[in-house]
């Protein structure tokens, strides 16, 4: 027998449990029913966006200096030199003052001038340059040489050779299959690139040299060499207090040169701090497609029409991969890919995808991609109509421009345009672009590059990823699902795409897990804040003080330490990325970081 009191108590408990479970589901549905973009409320406000843009543009202007100081970067040579363009963009992103010198002699004469100089190796030929290099080293100033001078000049000019840390030019040109990148220059640790063929002169190096990358090859003569005699690709020569950093190749002529320059700059100081974005964006491009297109191929490859394939085959694997990698989901939808044929479109799928993506705390943007040839504005108008019908309250914050020309979309995004809510444009990465890595459109919309294909991770991709993440603390990757619908090759089958996508994560991205995974809108906010950031650092040998003037909350830095470690921090938090590299989050205006030498005797004598 059960007493009445017990009966009532049990009933009440059961009711409460039932209510709790039901409420979870109900609250989720309530959230879904709003049909809003959960990131819309967190998006940067119009006023703040304008403020940050203004700050950034003002800073960029103010960074130029007529006269250099020790903290200034000196760009030596013609302004049109590719390496100087990269150097200029790097200075702007790292908020470094820069100045120009016509040649090294001028820089050397300016004894109190720029402490970190960038020069193209091809411009070094005269005895004055050699003399200037020596003088600069004695003055304790550091020089980055992009590419070696002509080998004939080097062979003839002993002094020039020695001033670059070269003992002998053994071969004018050799072909190497890859290279070994040592730990320390960029984040990611030591690695070997076996498939990174390049041609380069073979220079045997002097003493006082530290190599950052040396050639790898299966060729017998290279295999027979001592490690220290291997053809070096990137090295540092330390003839005196000042160092000469030499890049034997064209790595400083593209966007990823920013990473190498960061590594060099970090090497010149015992403690080096620079701002980063701290965001990793993973985008599923052209997903979802809700129209039933290319039925022959779909039927042949998957036995179903495309909308079903996207819903029942692609979506579960996408969720699984995002779950596994812990990436934040950004999908850029293209309801149709072919706007000319008017294939059947299941509008209810949009609601379904909205609910699913929102459950995954993801974000839906719009893609500008199509296989048809209708004007972009028309395509986007159709897409917006669909959204207005199904999700009238959904604010589309992100536009995937892909490889579209800036002119095509510039007038369609941003305040007062067709896509008025959009403040982020995801564009394809261009290594040779001479503009800044992140850029503003005139109307304040931010452009962020997607520089990786989630399916592909060749050696060159890995090196690019390391360099750009080191320089900016930003990772942008995407997988294009339109290829499933319109395959170009056998490899565009979804099982191969998803396999390639998922397998690349662990070996290549885990070293960079310290950077936060964000959606495109979250990254947008961080990039804006990063670009507008104003900061100052002071180091007294034991404590590093960072004064950060951020327009939008927390700001992020990467700290490179040589033989030191962080023991304490106030005004923020820190996390070790790898040996000698730290991720620092500054949450207050001033942060203080206490350092101590890593390797030292633990004992003392009383």
């Amino acid at each position, binding site marked *: 027998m059960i007493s009445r009191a017990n009966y009532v108590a049990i009933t009440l408990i059961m009711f409460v449990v039932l209510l709790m479970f039901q409420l979870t589901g109900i609250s989720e549905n309530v959230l879904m029913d709003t049909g809003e973009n959960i990131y819309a409320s967190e998006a940067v406000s119009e006023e703040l966006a304008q403020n940050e843009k203004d700050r950034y543009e003002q800073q960029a202007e103010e960074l130029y200096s007529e006269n250099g100081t020790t903290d200034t970067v000196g760009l030596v040579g013609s302004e049109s030199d590719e390496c100087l363009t990269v150097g200029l963009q790097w200075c702007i992103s790292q908020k470094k003052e820069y100045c120009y010198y016509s040649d090294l002699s001028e820089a050397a004469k300016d004894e109190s001038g720029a402490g970190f100089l960038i020069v193209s190796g091809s411009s070094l030929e005269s005895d004055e340059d050699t003399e200037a290099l020596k003088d600069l080293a004695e003055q304790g100033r550091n020089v980055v040489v992009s590419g070696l001078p002509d080998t004939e000049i080097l062979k003839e000019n002993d002094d020039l050779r*020695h001033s670059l840390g070269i*003992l002998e030019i053994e071969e004018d040109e050799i072909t190497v299959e890859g290279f*070994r990148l*040592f*730990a320390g220059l960029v984040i990611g640790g*030591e690695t070997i690139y076996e498939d990174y063929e390049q041609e380069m002169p073979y220079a045997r190096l*002097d*003493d*006082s*040299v*530290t*190599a950052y990358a*040396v050639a790898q090859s299966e060729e017998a003569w290279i295999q027979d060499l001592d*490690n*220290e005699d*291997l053809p070096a690709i990137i090295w540092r020569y*330390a*003839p*005196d*207090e000042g160092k000469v950093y030499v890049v034997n190749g064209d790595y400083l002529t593209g966007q990823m040169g920013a990473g190498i320059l960061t590594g060099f700059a970090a*090497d010149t100081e*015992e403690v080096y701090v620079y701002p980063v974005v701290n965001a990793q964006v993973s985008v599923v491009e052209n997903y979802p497609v809700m129209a039933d297109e290319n039925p022959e191929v779909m039927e042949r490859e998957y036995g179903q029409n495309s909308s079903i394939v996207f819903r029942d085959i692609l979506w579960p694997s996408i969720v699984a991969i995002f779950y596994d990698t812990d990436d934040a989901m950004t999908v850029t939808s293209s309801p149709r890919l072919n706007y000319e044929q008017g294939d059947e479109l299941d509008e209810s799928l949009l609601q379904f995808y909205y609910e699913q993506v929102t459950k995954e705390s993801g974000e839906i943007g719009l893609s500008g991609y199509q296989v048809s040839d209708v004007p972009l504005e028309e395509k986007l108008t159709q897409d917006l109509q669909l959204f207005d019908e199904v999700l009238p309250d959904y604010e589309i914050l992100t536009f995937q421009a892909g490889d579209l020309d800036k002119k095509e979309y510039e007038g369609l995004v941003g305040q007062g345009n067709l896509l008025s809510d959009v403040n982020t444009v995801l564009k394809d990465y261009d290594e040779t672009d001479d503009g800044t890595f992140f850029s503003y459109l005139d109307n304040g919309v931010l452009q962020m590059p997607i520089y990786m294909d989630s399916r592909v991770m060749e050696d060159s991709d890995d090196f690019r990823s390391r360099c750009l993440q080191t320089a900016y603390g930003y990772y942008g990757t995407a997988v294009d699902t339109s290829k499933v619908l319109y395959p170009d090759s056998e490899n565009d089958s979804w099982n191969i795409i998803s396999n390639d996508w998922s397998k690349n994560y662990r070996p290549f991205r885990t070293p960079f897990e310290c950077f936060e995974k964000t959606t495109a809108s979250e990254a947008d906010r961080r990039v804006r804040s990063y670009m507008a950031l104003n900061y100052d650092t002071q180091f007294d040998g034991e404590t590093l003080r960072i004064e950060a003037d951020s327009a939008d909350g927390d700001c992020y830095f990467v700290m490179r330490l*040589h*033989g030191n470690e962080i023991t304490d921090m106030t005004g923020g938090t820190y996390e070790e990325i790898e040996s000698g590299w730290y991720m620092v989050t500054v949450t207050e205006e001033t942060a203080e970081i206490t350092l101590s*030498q890593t*390797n*030292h*005797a*633990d*004992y*003392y*004598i*009383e």
Partner: protein
Amino acid sequence: MSFNFVTTVWIAKIFIIYTLMVVVLPYFVMRKFLQGRSITQKFVFSIVAGNFFYIMIVLLWGLVHITNRYVLIATTFAIPVGMAVKGRKKLWEGHVRQTWIHLRRFIKRENSFRYSMRIFFRWLGREIKSALRRLGIFLRKNIFELILFLGCSAFVMWYFSITNHFGPRASDLVVHMYWINGVDDGILYRAGIYPFGMHALLYYFHAVFDIPTVRLVLLFGTVQAFYIFTMFLAFLKEICRYRYTPYLTYVAFAVGSYLVSGRYARYYATLPQEFGMVFILPCVIALIRFFRAVRDENAEYKRMKEQKLLYTRIDGKRRWRESTIQLWLLIISFGLTLSAHFYSTIIAGVLVLAAAVAYIRFIFNPKTFRRLVCAAVIAIMIPVFPMAVAFAGGTPLEGSLYWALEVMGVSRSDETEQSEDASSENTSEENGNTAVDSSGENTKVSAQGDNSGETASSEPAQPELSLQEKISQFVENAKSTAVAMLTMLIFSSEGVLQAWVWCVPVLLVEIPLMWLLREWEYSRYIIMILLASIFLIILCIPDTFGLPSLLDQSRASIYCAYFILTGLSLAADGVLVVLGRIIRVRALWQFASLAMAAAFVFYTAEGGYIRVKTVNSSSLERDGAQLCVYDIMEKYPDEKWTIVSCNEERNMVSPVAWHYEVCDFLEEMENYSDDDEMYIPTQYVFFFIEKRSMDYSYGEFTDVDAEVSEYWASQELPPTSGLSQYSGTNRIITNSRLYYWAQEYQKRFPNEMKVYYEDDDFVCYYIEQNEYYLNNFAIDYGYNSRDYTASEVETYD
């Protein structure tokens, strides 16, 4: 953490391990056999058996090159386990059966849990109670003795533990480390055949307990000193009849400042000679006990024969007679002295000779004589066996053996082949003393004594002397030389010498008194002590008596000092024995002995006669360097690092890492050219630099400024040859050169090359390298590309 504290902890750790393994474990293994014996006997048997066992297993396995940790552990436990199995019926089968009965009952629920617990706790309570009762009885009986012993022992441990300086106290310690580490590589006699007892024992602890050799060799000296002193007390307890009279000598020797402090200097270091000292007195104890047992056995034989009970006697083949046991103790102890150091064997031989003279009556018994001769042969054969096998296998003799022979006056034609190690031992063992206290150490007392200003060569021809005059002159000469030696090398003051001299007539008077009282045994002790003292004094001044010099005077005097105060206890004890025969109240005289000991302790303490501990820093290595060696060995993975330093650290780190000598390092970039290469293929490289160089083996420089300086750096690099490159001012040059190299290299590699440790005298730099692409350390640092034939070299001002 303070390195001083770490060192103290290490000393305690080594002491505990040694005590447990060498004293306690053998005692437990032999406890049935030792039952009924005195604590002294138990101690002597345990320590001798323990040392013998560990030394022999290392030596025997070493001959077949199997000396790894697991073999040694297995061998160690083979005997205890074997005995436990063999004696299982008595030892543990009953307990196990009883426990099993209780367990089974509990499992079958015949006994409740509470009842089982009650049984268990009742048993536990009984055991604890019994143990506490035994402890209480022991404390009640021995409280005063315990206070005396523990007080003196604590003083000894404190006095001989150096916790404020850390370098080696003798330069050959690193050679011993090298030899011990050789066993790690399966090479028993790495530098040639040498008495390897101490090395074998230390290797055992290094291998089994994973203690770095450098720690053992640098710190074992304290433990060794404690046991040398305790063995002395055991010997005194053996010959004195009253309980507290041994403490007169023990306090005087262990705590008092009655002897020249230089005589204690070598106890700081872990040296084979001192290790061998532990086994000298057990030889005497065993011989005395042997004679005593022979006497008793003969008496018993006689008695049984008279009573016609000989047929009841158990045959010697079926049981070990006490005399045989003691003879084996003598054999093993003597063998251990030989396996440790020849000098200890010589001294053991001298003391055995003194005992044999005292017990001459027994020697003339042919049977006893035969047994003793056999024992002598076996005692020599046991330690010589491993050496003989190794010699037969082609291992040559170690150089210092030739040196020892030379000291004894035995020269060989190929003297020039003597190894550097031999000379280093010679030098160092001399110098080991200077590191602590050099008072009177290196003064050779001549045959004419200290007042013989006139030398024989310069004297005019002496007139012919009669035999009586000659004898008289000889006696006078011997007396003055002995007094001079005792004054300069043994006793700290004339007063102490006088006091000791007064003991001699007392002992001489006691001999006939003992005969009158029919205390034959006691009289033999006195004779033995007097003879041994005389022999040891003669050993210190053999020239006076026209005898060959068997060992260095400085070494002989250490043994002499060790033994010479024995007469003090025996004289006092003898008086009590005589008085005890007049008034036969033993408790009264026991109390009198306590009063004497207490009074002496009071006198020593109040009179300011407690030895003062003054320890200078090592003259061989800077404290900072030793700290760094320990710190680096503890923290960095094996074989991943190299130390670049003068010489001392080479053998300290050799088993786990690499060493590069500074001279070799600098030589690689001397007369610098672009093609010079100097690679060290380890991830971490540490550079040890003495900012203020020491005068190697002598302490600090007094005549030159030994700080690193441009002047010294600009001197020509000493040629690389032996120790000379690190001796004298060469060491300052070498350190200065390395210092300026480090300054220049740090200027070029500020992020990589850092200071690891620095104090006023020493600095350690370190660099972490990319192992795949090594740093070329050869650079032009400003002093390695100069022309030293040019006149620009400055002169020292």
